């Protein structure tokens, strides 16, 4: 297996992109990534999208995008793993380059969620249709049940959940690509409308359009085309039961624990060595549970960590410097790639106002459904 590096990035602004189609946003991000990487061709591409068929009625999205990018006849595939589709696209591209099969591969993610579909119903297809969704459960509902269980088991509070949103909005206010660049107060979060108790509107990531793309190539070649390659030092994936009710615990996400164990083993790192991380905060409780399952905090202490600022920009381990899904936006298929882009920007000193000093090692954790899929990538500046 060859060492693999990221050499170029491109993403659209995340938000309600009314004037652009799903093709337009993907092609814009892809062209930016190709230009950024300064490559004259790509050998293949992976497009991560969760539900283009439901959101805009278009499947076969890999071919659509290669066509509109002017890249036919290169091989192109759509990959899907709910909200972890972008993470899977990245991992497939990584494996193709590492194996020696291709040199320059584009990994992208895209979603167009504001064109009129019933978003709640479309997103719910990532849960168990026959035994969860049939009963009327929604995604906020599933994470709300995780939140209630976490509160019951560990004494986590609504205020601790709100601290996650306040922090991520503060970070997102410094991200020009973020959907919401407005800060929110603890009081605003605590008084926002209940969506599924105890989760309020400001505990939830928004409905977004957006695309994000990166170019990968062998590390040896990367050194010839750029003086700031970022090496992929771990790529791990794991799964869990599709239904939340089938798990032994509702407060631990086994897919996250398994993927993390593999990623730490591959990179010979411990959680203490990770300087910062982009994690899947589709709901505030998700960030709390994930930061525990990644080993950053003891089980049950994720809420207190958010409250006391351990995950803030100045804290022990900055989490979601991009603003996270909460503030940057969550075009479901694009999220996994956008997380990689934030880590890349930090490691190449391009994060502007939200730049972490001496950033050398960062992690991206991307999750599908109520944690039935998890992708973890660790990147290192070289």
């Amino acid at each position: 297996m060859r060492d693999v590096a990221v050499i170029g990035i491109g993403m659209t602004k995340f938000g309600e992109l009314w004037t652009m189609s799903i093709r337009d946003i993907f092609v814009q991000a892809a062209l930016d990534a190709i230009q950024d990487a300064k490559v004259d061709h790509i050998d293949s591409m992976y497009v991560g999208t969760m539900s283009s068929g439901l959101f805009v009625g278009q499947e076969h999205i890999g071919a659509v995008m290669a066509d509109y990018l002017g890249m036919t006849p290169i091989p192109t595939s759509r990959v899907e793993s709910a909200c972890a589709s972008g993470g899977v696209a990245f991992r497939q591209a990584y494996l193709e380059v590492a194996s020696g099969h291709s040199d320059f591969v584009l990994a992208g993610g895209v979603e167009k969620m504001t064109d009129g579909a019933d978003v709640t119903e479309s997103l719910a297809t990532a849960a168990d249709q026959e035994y969860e969704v049939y009963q009327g459960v929604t995604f906020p509902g599933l994470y709300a049940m995780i939140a209630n269980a976490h509160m019951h088991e560990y004494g986590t509070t609504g205020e601790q959940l709100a601290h996650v949103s306040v922090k991520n909005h503060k970070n997102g206010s410094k991200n020009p690509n973020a959907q919401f660049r407005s800060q929110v107060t603890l009081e605003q979060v605590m008084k926002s409308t209940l969506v599924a108790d105890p989760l309020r509107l400001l505990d939830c990531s928004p409905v977004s359009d957006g695309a994000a793309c990166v170019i990968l190539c062998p590390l040896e070649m990367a050194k010839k085309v750029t003086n700031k390659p970022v090496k992929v030092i771990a790529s791990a994936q794991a799964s869990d039961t599709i239904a939340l009710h089938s798990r032994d615990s509702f407060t631990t996400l086994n897919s996250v624990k398994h993927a993390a164990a593999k990623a730490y083993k591959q990179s010979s790192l411990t959680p203490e060595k990770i300087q910062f991380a982009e994690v899947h905060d589709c709901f505030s409780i998700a960030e709390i549970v994930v930061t525990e399952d990644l080993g950053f905090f003891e089980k049950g202490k994720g809420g207190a960590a958010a409250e006391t600022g351990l995950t803030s920009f100045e804290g022990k381990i900055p989490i979601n410097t991009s603003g996270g899904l909460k503030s940057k936006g969550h075009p479901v298929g694009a999220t996994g790639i956008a997380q990689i882009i934030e880590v890349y920007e930090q490691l190449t000193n391009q994060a502007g106002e939200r730049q972490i000093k001496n950033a050398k090692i960062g992690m991206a954790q991307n999750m599908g459904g109520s944690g039935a899929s998890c992708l973890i990538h660790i990147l290192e500046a070289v």
Partner: protein
Amino acid sequence: MISPRYFREIPQRYRLEAGKCKKCGALFFPPRIVCSKCKSKEFETVKLQDEGKILTYTIIRVGPDKFSKETPYAVGIVQLVDGVKLTTQIVDTDLEKIKIGSKVKLVFRKIQDEGKWGLHCYGYKAVLI
């Protein structure tokens, strides 16, 4: 209108039929073809007991279109006496009375109408006892 997707789930939703692995005894609801504990493919059908307790729950206040007229409604994960866990609505109660640990019994109710012809779909919901 015949909806195979609905009809083939009737043994589970109407009669709470689960699959018990003949090799390791693990109980699966809904039944499976392969035991995820020991990989055996031999099962016997058992009927679950209809009583249990609430492990966690939420009140859905923003629902999908199909359920939007019912909001707010409670959904919880219930563990039945046999140990099996399932997701179900919790009904016939003031929402404030629902607590983690509350004892419940499953009852037979209409769950939703499916498709443009409005096929009535039934199943279980939980009531407090």
